[in-house]
Every structure is written in structure tokens, then in C-alpha cells.
């Protein structure tokens, strides 16, 4: 999916979100203590600004498709996951002796569409989300030690660790180790679990 299409999708989602938000803000009932603006006044204004920005983004994406502006191929939002190609792309943007302004650094010449994350990356991320939610569900039932061990095991395996003794040992040690840290050292009571209570 190229950047223009991505921006149009974002604009559409933002427009829908803004509309729903404004509708929800209008539903807020004011109390007798309220001022002239009301509890829903500022949220409605912010929703309107979001809607306007979304419309402008849609227009910008349309302009880029029509070749009326430089397709704004942004450098990736600065992420900690820096790799040398990204460092190179940022480094190459400072070739002019003056150095980059923030927006200059973000604009590059028209290039190939930005790659969509491969399916396996999306699936792996989605699986990790499920693992984290499963941890949240398991925590009050099975207790902290068991849940955190299961979390370490599942997330480590998802991240690519082989399901062998080293990972199993790490998972087994994580439960008691972190429990000692939180429950004993930091005096934060961690749940024992309804199954064992």
C-alpha cells in the first residue's frame, strides 16, 4: 500500500472517528454546575479540528496522486528500532552543508511505495496481543507466578526462541524471581490466584 492510499485510509478512519466523537460529545448532559461552554463544548471543538485535519489529509493525498505536490514520503517516524539503512537515509538527508530542518529531513524524493508489513509480522504481532490479553485473563485466576511464567514462555516462543530447556528454565525462573522482586522487595502484593485460594 503506497503512502497516498495509506493517508486516504487514515483520513477516512479519522473522519469516522471524529463524527462519532462529536456525536458522543453532544450526548453529554450538562449539570447545573456547568459553565457556558459545557462538558461537551471543548470535545466537540477538538472533534471538529480532527475532522478538518482528516479532510485536509485526504486532499493532500489526492494532490500527491495527481502529482500536484511532492508525495510526502516520510522518513519512518523515529523509532527505536533503528537499523543501518534507516541511519543511512537520515544521514543522506543532511548532505546540504546547512543541515536539515525537521520538515526537510522528512521529505524525500518520490520513491517506490512504502512496503506493507509482511503477513507473518502482522500475525506474530496479533498473536502477541492475544498472549498479553491471555495473561491479563489468567492473572486473577492462576496467580502471578504462574501467569508471568506462562507469559515469558509464550512471548519468548513467539519471538523465535526454541521451545527447549533454556526457554523453559527462563520461564520457570521468571515467576518466582519477579515475585520476589515485587512482592518482597518492592512490597507490592501480587495476586495468589482464585484457583489456589
Amino acid at each position, binding site marked *: 500500500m503506497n503512502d497516498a492510499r495509506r493517508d486516504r485510509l487514515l483520513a477516512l478512519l479519522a473522519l469516522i472517528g471524529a463524527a462519532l466523537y462529536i456525536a458522543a460529545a453532544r450526548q453529554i448532559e*450538562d449539570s447545573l454546575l456547568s459553565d457556558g461552554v459545557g462538558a461537551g463544548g471543548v470535545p466537540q471543538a477538538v472533534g471538529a479540528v480532527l475532522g478538518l485535519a482528516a479532510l485536509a489529509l485526504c486532499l493532500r493525498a489526492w494532490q500527491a496522486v495527481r502529482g500536484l505536490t511532492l508525495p510526502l514520503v516520510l522518513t519512518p517516524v523515529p523509532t527505536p528500532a533503528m537499523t543501518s539503512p534507516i541511519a543511512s537515509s537520515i544521514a543522506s538527508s543532511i548532505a546540504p552543508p546547512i543541515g536539515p530542518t525537521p520538515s526537510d529531513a522528512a521529505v524525500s524524493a518520490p520513491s517506490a511505495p512504502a512496503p506493507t508489513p509482511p503477513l507473518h509480522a502482522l500475525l506474530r504481532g496479533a498473536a502477541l496481543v492475544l498472549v498479553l490479553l491471555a495473561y491479563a485473563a489468567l492473572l486473577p485466576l492462576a496467580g502471578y507466578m504462574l501467569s508471568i511464567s506462562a507469559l515469558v514462555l509464550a512471548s519468548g516462543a513467539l519471538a523465535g526462541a526454541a521451545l527447549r530447556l533454556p526457554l523453559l528454565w527462563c520461564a520457570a525462573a521468571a515467576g518466582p524471581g519477579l515475585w520476589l522482586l515485587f512482592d518482597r522487595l518492592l512490597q507490592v502484593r501480587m495476586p495468589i490466584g482464585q484457583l489456589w485460594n
Partner: protein
Amino acid sequence: MDGLSSAFTQLASVSVLLAAFGGVLWGILGGALPGISPSIAMALLLPFTVGLAPTTALVLLASVYVGAEYGGSIPAILIRTPGTNSASATVLDGYAMAQQGRAGEALGISLMSGLWGGLFGLAVLVLATESLARVALAFTPAAYFSLGILGLSVIAGLSGGSLLKGSMAACGGLMIAFIGSDPVSGVARFTGGSADLLGGVKPILIMVGLFAVTEMLVQISQPPWAKANASQARLKLPGWAMTRRLAKPQAIGAVIGTVEGVTPGAGGTIAAFMAYSEAKRWSSRPEEFGQGSPEGIAAPECANNVVTATALVPLLSLGIPGSNSAAVLLGGFLIHGLQPGPMLFSKAPDVVYGLYGGLLLANIAMLLWGLVILGPCIWLVNRPKPYLIAFILALVMSGVYAIHQSVFDIVLVVATGVFGWVLRWFKVPVLPLVLGLVLGYLVESNFRRSLVISAGELSIFFTDGVSLVLLLLAALLTAYTGWKEFAPAKKGPR
């Protein structure tokens, strides 16, 4: 003078000492791991600061920031992978020096440049913050509202390169900030009937979700980073001749780091690259840059360490965090019921001066740890990535639960992490969202307060001189960045 003496008194506090040394160690190790930014390293510790004294907690978080900036240069030099964004410029000459067998020398230059930068930045922080805060004390509610708008405009325009996406992110942050009870009437807003949301969404949970969980969702499918060579683990500090040679690029880095640091949204990465560029321009040996020039390391490393302190200037004086890391530090303030801004100097001066003293300690700790930490850092970088991801997630989930013993908080953090993942895919910057979240209350309450004062007249925002100037600045900046975004395509050279 009382403030400075208070700062020095804090140096003798055992808890502050431990926080500084512990925070720097955590920061160096975190920063050395590609994928763990200073803000993530700080966000991981945020939940653990709840039970600490305010000064100790803030020193701990700020020390992580200081340590991470040096830690990021270690993999940048050894394996051509910056541990933090702001170490990207260090790759250019640092890795070249490592290939020439001068990795220890490169790391020594990085350490000393970082130390000088950190101390210089601290001096600027101490001198500039209180003066700016005194000016801000005279602000009316209308001026505060306009200041919030200016802060949001600056961040929206400068971070991520797209004003529109930055604005949308800022609106998103404000929308999240409005969840909970109305500050004037107490009416529930956007809670969906949930009792857990009546108190609002805690910024700490959003920050942990956006910074830590999102990054793990991305990292889980990234390939492992290269291994570092343990035989390179011998630091070499620059001698007197080299120190003299590095003075000019460090001075350049210091100036640029100061300007970029106090500018909300600019940050260490831009400062590092601008410092590199200017150091090359003013160098007597520009041809060496990119081939292993010590000056090519000194300038960016000095600049990014200056930013660790100067980015706190707008935070402490105006309450506007200028970077992700400053935003996490703001979260630390909020956890302890402190609101950064001009009133902080009168309500909790010991916290501010304690932070100054702690930052001094942190820079000293960075030097001491830097002399011995290289081997363990290389060991850590060489650990299998899946184990690191699992450990970080375990720490995050445990820390989040530890705040209020609430499973709802865990679910909220996971949901925020997914939201951040989606934003990353759409290339929407996160800092404006965080800023909108933390400034939401300030913006709304001062807007409504101003209208109460003016009996509903919006002209108050234009008749108040300070407010008018701030709004004009916001409008000019927005217009400029908007024009750049919508400028027609220029024809390239033939």
C-alpha cells in the same frame, strides 16, 4: 543561592545517589539494546517509581535518560546499529573507527563528549529554567491556554514531518485526556459507563503502552541484530592532544544541542545530525568525516547529551515536554501529584533543585559506569533477542499491575500498544498524542476559565497581550509548516 545549596544537599542523600547510579546503569544497558529508546527505558521504570519519594523518582527517570544517550552509542560504534535514534549520527564515523581497530578510542570519545555535553546542558537548564518560569508566572488563564495551543502546534508541526498527522495525533491525545470527569461540573464523559474510567485515563498507562508495548509488537518480527565482538571491550579515553582537537566540535554540539533541546519537538536526533553537519563544515579536516573522524563522534554525542538536560527547560518552566523522554518524565511528576510549570518552583522547589543535583550526579555516574560497563553491555547485546523481548514484556506487565493492582490497567496498556502499532503503520507521530494527553487538562480548564472571566467573550484571547503573541506564533508556525506540506511539486534539475 538557597536553591543551589539545596541541590548540593541532595547530592549527599543516599536515595538520590542510588537513584542516579542505578538509573544511569539501567539507561546505559537499555540504550545499548537496539529497540529500547530512552523513553522506553524510562517508561519501563515509571510504574516502579510510584512508591519512591518524588525527588528520588525523578532523579531515577532523568538518570535513565542520561545513561541511555551514552548507551546508544555502544552498538552504533560496535555493530553499526544505533541503540537510540540520536546515536544514528555516531554510526557514520564510529563504526568506521571500529573497523580500523579503534573501537575503544571511539567509545572513549563518545563517553567524554557525552559528559561535557551533559554538564553544559545542566548549566543551561539551571540558568534558563527559573528565569523562564518567572515570566510564565505572570501568565493569565488565557495566556496558559494559548501556551498549550502553541506547544501543541510546535510539536504537531515538528515531529514526524507532517503537520496534518501531527495535528490529528494531538487531537487524539486531547480526546483521550477528556475521558473521565468534567473538570468543572464533574459530569462523566466518554466513560461508557465504566467505573474504571471515571478517574480518567492515566498518562503513565498510555506512555507505557505507546512506547514499550508498541515497540515490542514491532520488534517481535524484526530480525535479530548483529553480534558485537567482545574483544573490542577496551575503552580508551582521549588524551590531551585529542581533547584539544575535540573542543571545537564539542562546542558546536553544545550550541546546537541547546537550541534544539529547548525547542519542543526537535530532540536529540535532529540535534545530533545538525551538529555532525556543522562540525564537518567548520572542521579543518572535513575529508575525514565518514572515514573515522573523531570529530564526527564528538559533535553528535555532545549534542545529544546536551539535549538530555535542555529538553527539560520547557518542561520545568512551562510544563510542556519537548520530547518523548521529557513526556515520560512529566508522567513521573504527575504520578507524585506534581504539575511541572512555573508554580513548581514555589510549590516544590526542593524537587526541582533535587533534580538538578541528581542530574549532576547522573553525569558523574555516566563517566564512572562508562569506564567499566562495556563488557556487560556487549554481553547483553549478544543475548538472544527473544529472551530480551520476553523479559521486557514480563517487566512491563508486572509494573503496570503494580501501580493500582488492576487488571483493567493491563488491558488498557495492551490496547494502547495496539493503537500505537496502528499509528506506526500509518506513520503518525506519537509525541503530539502524548502531549495532547498531558496538556488536555491545562488547555481545557484555562480555556473555560478565561471565558468565565470574560463572560463568554472569545476576544479575551486576543486582548491579552501574551495570549495574542503566543497565538500569533502558533498561527505563523502552523501556516509555515502547512505551506511546506502543501507546496506544489518543484521541478528537479535537468
